[in-house]
């Protein structure tokens, strides 16, 4: 169910599916916030790698640009995961709620 929903949304909107996977794991499957974010990232590796391979076969993936923006992102994710362990789980939920509202606003406007 989560997989289908996440896949559907990533197919429709070109997002990795994290905005669907994380809330469903927390709200329906009773995951803790940190556990939901970690598990979501593992699912996203698979989803994004499959989608990148598919788009790559059409020649739409620019490897150099992807690496250029991906390298600072690696520094960011190291900092982000370290920081996440030091803040309360409900702060993680709060941040996620803000991200969802922002993402909804992008879709609407």
């Amino acid at each position: 169910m989560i997989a289908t929903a996440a896949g559907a949304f990533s197919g429709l909107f070109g997002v990795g599916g994290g905005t669907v996977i994380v809330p469903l794991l927390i709200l329906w499957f009773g995951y803790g916030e940190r556990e939901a974010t970690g598990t979501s990232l593992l699912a996203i590796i698979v989803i994004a790698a499959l989608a990148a391979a598919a788009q790559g076969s059409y020649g739409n993936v620019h490897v150099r640009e992807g690496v250029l923006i991906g390298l600072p992102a690696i520094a960011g994710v190291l900092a982000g995961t370290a920081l996440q362990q030091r803040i309360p789980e409900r702060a993680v939920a709060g941040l996620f709620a803000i991200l969802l509202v922002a993402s909804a606003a992008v879709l609407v406007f």
Partner: protein
Amino acid sequence: MELTDVIGMLVIGFGAGMMGGLVGVGGGILFVPGLVIFLGLSQLEALSTSLLAIVFVASVGAWRQGRYGNLRVRDGLVIGLLSPLGVLAGTVLANAVSERALELSFAAVQVFFAWSLARRALRSGAQRHDATSAAPNG
């Protein structure tokens, strides 16, 4: 590439990674505009290229979260491997319904999730603090 583009890309990339680490998303919401604005890619190229950057973020993030004990490997793999079914369902849906209707319904779902998560977070906060704090807040 201009210096401002390099700086913009570093900031957007770092921000997207930070988001991945904090809330467990891939960061595409930042990667895509970053690639369009600072590297001059088209929307389709940016969407596709962002997937590569997302693989970086998700791999490093999942590895770190695994080390912190926040990873359920089996569930994550099952969700990831079943998601192509959803992509098919989404493609069928996209051809049946107008794009605007899809955008608006997805936005509504996201707001509902946000509300549910916020309510949960506030409730757990209240449980923790109701003994010490009686201050009303609007």
